[in-house]
């Protein structure tokens, strides 16, 4: 059985990935409109407050969700959910950087065995180091049976 406390001690709160982005206004509009959004701050690139909807911010967190040396726990991780906290507008055309670390590791026991949940947190900054948003990606891994 995986030792959750040992995993926490080894992996929590250590940046393991860093990515840079420049957001495309047209793609931001497409995502907003496909989501049913009609507010011009999300659908009109000429609006003075034009910015990304939370779902678009969340999409930036796709990619590597685990440190390269994280142990294999069982099956493929499933996408258990996502969260976004917005601190400031995320705008098109400016350089952004996302730093990712593991924010939590915990387990849940069910009838079919133990599930391990891992939260990968990406903190998004602009080129002036303003913290714009935080995204959490929850991965669910069914632990491999030891029998």
């Amino acid at each position: 059985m995986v030792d959750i406390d040992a995993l926490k001690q080894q992996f929590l709160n250590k940046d393991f990935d860093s990515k840079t982005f420049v957001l495309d206004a047209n793609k931001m509009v497409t995502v907003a409109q496909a989501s049913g959004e009609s507010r011009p701050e999300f659908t009109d690139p000429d609006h003075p407050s034009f910015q990304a909807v939370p779902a678009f911010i969340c999409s930036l967190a796709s990619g590597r969700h685990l440190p390269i040396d994280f142990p294999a726990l069982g099956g493929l991780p499933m996408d258990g959910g996502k969260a976004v906290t917005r601190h400031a507008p995320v705008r098109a055309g400016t350089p952004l950087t996302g730093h990712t670390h593991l924010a939590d590791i915990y387990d849940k026991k069910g009838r079919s065995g133990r599930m391990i949940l891992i939260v990968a947190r990406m903190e998004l900054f602009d080129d002036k180091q303003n913290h714009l948003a935080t995204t959490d990606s929850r991965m669910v891994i069914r632990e491999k049976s030891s029998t």
Partner: protein
Amino acid sequence: MSIQTLADVEFGEQLPTFTPDTSLNTVRKFAHAVGWQGGRFEDHERARKEGFPGALVPGIMGMGFLTSTVHQWCADAHVEQIDTVFRAPMIADEPCFIEAVVTDIDEERSLVELDMTLKNNLDETRVFGTARVRLPKAG
């Protein structure tokens, strides 16, 4: 009923039900825009070959639907935080609807908390979540 300010909100109030566009064409556009090209989001047959019941609606598109529900309820709402749990796959071209209810009101900080659920037409929950929303203060 849509609202203007925090003063219009009542604890336990239900937001107007929102029926998003889950057509395959719209799902495909969303997936391309976020860089998630692939058969599972674009084509029912290709998705079935991957073992899914049909082309999938990306989970984060569900988050987009929930956010739009909030904005349709209050045109000046600011979604500070939204947390979604992907409980089961959403399938493109299958109708779904979103329900939401006000579970907390913080008058001092002008915030409300919402519980939100996205269900299919069989009343099965596909995505659920919570949102913390800042609303304009009255006056």
